[in-house]
């Protein structure tokens, strides 16, 4: 259940002409308003005290630049106008002025000191990670986020939910195109939430503009950040560090709920986890047929594997190996299982064992052995997967 983007009116796709017109509306209006015009042009005000404070800092430095710019460009345009040869045929002969040079060294330095003071105090507060109410460990990998609620002991992956058809222009793009996930991060209002960030592969960066939180997720590091959100709502962001092929496709969605609702959500998650493990037991005790596994396997393949190995199983030459007629998918099934479960070191091929259930692993492996002309006709049961864990 997604409410419209908060922090500004829901943006519909207006025509190019309309936007052009609005972008040409007077600059002053643009700079003064925080919600209407500036929504698409200025930094977002966001929904935390810190994001608003950062917006103020941004406006302060912007105004300093605008005022200095008006003075410098004003003098420049005046001299271009008044001292052009047709109006001012005889040039002056001065070539230095110690007083002017001292002045325009000292005055900017003083302006900088004036700017540095609020910039410093805001930074000191941002870096104060102490006294948090709740900790979420965010683990990035290519190209998804994993959220682990340390205290509650629940965790799950969050992935792009925009269909490929929209990305490849075969279907109209939805309102939250590229900014929707299968399972958002859920946070309570008015609690200091501490984020711990790390990565399993390359460097990613977790950014939600409305919280003014941007922190790199670096393999081997655990970075810290925090937020305290005042207003319930759905807030969206993206990975902001180039992390490989699908860098543009790892959005972040955070659903902020009132505290009571959040507590219920946590309880629901725990219940769901318990149910899932019961289902898992039932699934692995059942003997599955090829006809049952294949459609399930195809769905999982398209969701998780097709980005690299391609829906046709042909991979991308020199980068991602083909699965059609490959050694692994047509060879010994134990090796195949091992590769899917444990991945291949130092490549984008991740270990899928912690990400998929026994049944899902069994289904996708069975699918890979029996699709795109692979015709091994063997299948693997969830129980076998379970025993290999």
């Amino acid at each position, binding site marked *: 259940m997604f409410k419209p983007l908060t922090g500004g009116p829901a943006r519909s796709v*207006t025509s190019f002409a309309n936007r052009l017109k609005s972008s040409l509306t007077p600059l002053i209006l643009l700079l003064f308003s925080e919600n209407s015009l500036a929504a*698409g042009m200025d*930094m977002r005000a966001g929904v935390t005290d810190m994001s608003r404070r950062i917006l103020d800092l941004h406006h302060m430095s912007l105004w300093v630049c605008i005022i200095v710019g008006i003075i410098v460009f004003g003098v420049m345009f005046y001299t271009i106008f008044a001292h052009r040869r047709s109006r001012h*045929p005889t040039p002056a002969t001065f070539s230095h002025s110690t007083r*002017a040079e001292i002045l325009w060294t000292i005055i900017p330095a003083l302006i900088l000191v004036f700017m540095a003071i609020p910039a410093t105090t805001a930074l000191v507060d941002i870096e104060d990670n102490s006294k948090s109410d709740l900790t979420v460990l965010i683990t990035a990998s290519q190209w998804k986020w994993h959220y682990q609620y340390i205290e509650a002991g629940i965790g799950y992956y969050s992935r792009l939910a925009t269909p490929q058809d929209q990305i490849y222009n075969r279907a109209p793009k939805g309102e939250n195109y*590229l900014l929707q996930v299968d399972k958002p991060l859920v946070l309570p209002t008015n609690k200091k939430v501490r984020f711990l960030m790390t990565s399993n592969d390359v460097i990613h960066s977790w950014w939600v503009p409305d919280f003014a939180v941007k922190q790199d997720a670096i*393999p081997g590091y655990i970075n810290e950040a925090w937020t305290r959100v005042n207003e319930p709502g759905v807030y969206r962001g993206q990975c902001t*560090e*180039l992390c490989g092929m699908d860098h543009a496709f790892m959005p972040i969605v955070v659903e902020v709920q009132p505290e009571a609702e959040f507590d219920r959500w946590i309880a629901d998650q725990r219940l769901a986890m318990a149910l899932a493990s019961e289902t898992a037991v039932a699934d692995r005790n059942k003997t599955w047929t090829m006809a049952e596994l294949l459609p399930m396997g195809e769905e999982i393949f398209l969701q998780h594997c097709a980005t690299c190995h391609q829906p046709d199983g042909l991979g991308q030459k020199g*980068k991602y190996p083909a699965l059609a007629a490959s050694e692994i998918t047509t060879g010994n099934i134990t090796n195949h299982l091992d590769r899917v479960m444990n991945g291949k070191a130092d490549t984008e091929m991740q270990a899928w064992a912690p990400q998929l259930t026994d049944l899902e692993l069994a289904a996708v492996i069975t699918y890979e052995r029996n699709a795109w002309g692979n015709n091994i006709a063997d299948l693997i049961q969830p129980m076998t997967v379970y025993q290999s864990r």
Partner: protein
Amino acid sequence: MSNYAAAQSSRRNPVVAFAARWLLTTNHKEIGTLYLCLSFLLFFIAGAFAMGIRAELFQPGIQFIEPEFYNQLVTLHGLVMVFGVVMPAFVGLANWMIPMMVGAPDMALPRLNNFSFWILPFAFTILLSSLFMEGGAPNFGWTFYAPLSTTFGPPSTDFFIFGVHLMGISSVLGAINIIVTIFNMRTPGMTLMKMPMFVWTWLITAFLLIMVMPVLAGVVTMMLTDRHFGTSFFDASGGGDPVLFQHIFWFFGHPEVYIMILPGFGIASQIIPTFSRKKLFGYNSMVYATVSIAILSFVVWGHHMFTTGMPLFGELFFMYATMLIAVPTGVKVFNWVATMWRGSLTFETPMLFAIGFVALFTIGGFSGLMLAIVAADFQYHDTFFVVAHFHYVLYPGAIFSTMAAVYYWLPKWTGNMYDERLGKIHFWTAAIAVNLTFFPMHFTGLAGMPRRVVDYSLQFAEFNMLSSIGAGLLGLTQILFLYIVIKTIRGGPKASSQVWEGAEGLEWTVPSPAPHHTFETPPTLPADEPENTYGQVPATRDSQDF
């Protein structure tokens, strides 16, 4: 017997003679021409990459370019523009102009000069050939952060590493040559504080190059050993540190930013006085400001890394140091405006580009100051706001200043005047297109669009479309530039040796086109004039022709 003479005498076969002449030349003017031609060629190649990027970003969704290839384009666009366009263009200008400006017959080390140039075509052939390799070209951005570039880099990464090594060797050798030339070959009487500003800025740039190119070589070597020889400099699972990569890279990278702009400062400082018919305002403070910027450039690298989890003290230090750079940079801008103040201004194409440089570079400086504020940088970092910022300092900065220099000195190089009307059309279309391309990026960045993305959400669509239209126009204007340059080389009104009535300096005392050898005996500097006399007496420097 010089190589040039050798080539002349071996003109049995015109093709051999032509190849031998350009391959073996040790003449600073010819090598300067080679650098400029290579830079121009690569400008169109890297520009074509940019056209691909902007075509894909014209609309949301994936239209032309798959995500993997998009990343390759982004990487090569950056690498080629930085190492193949801006740097060789400045070295080419240095080769042409520094000996003529200091009254030297050639560069101090002519054979080394030949070698430093001829490394480059091979380096870029190696780099660009990676496009055709299995696995594709490097795809990790021009900043090639580990472990994306080490553990996860495509096989062509090794070619990239070799290419960067070659470019580094070329740059260091070129820089040595420039320093030696400036220190040893100035004509008698030209003290350091009488050197033209272009020579000064290049001297400082050359020192920066010598100091940081080995750092770049070091970091790519560490990558190489990480990839193939079992080390773990940047691999956390082996006890290494991915952030170490960024520290080393940006210790090179930030001075590199100034390497790409200081010669542009020098060019503006030559051109603005000429067309203001007034001496450069505050020569001494210009020199001190340039030296300060160069020194400060070594202590601000951390501002590229504010989101890596740097401790508070580090963030504060790098914020203050970065803000401090605004002071000397401001001095330079104020001095240029003061040079124009109460001058007698005319607006030939070089002057237009120089003024465009000062105005638009200042905008890039402003956004740079904003980016220094760490807390706000958390919102700006790695968004299109940063893309807007560095394109404002690089396009109107490095590229406009190079174009200004080309228009300014082209009559001296070719003996022909360029077409002033076309030059003005080139400037105005380029100035409009640059702003149309890069100004909307401030908005998309602030509104939350990350950089280096192949696709974006719908709220950014309109400004991206504007940027793409601007970029297309900007690409077209450079074809006009190519046409103007070729037309000038082929003919045009003859230029006098003075060329510009307000120009000062030794390069204007030699005929146009500059003969193959100039200043075989050191020239005499004109006596110090207590004040300049432009406008009162007609310029008669032609009488000093050789």
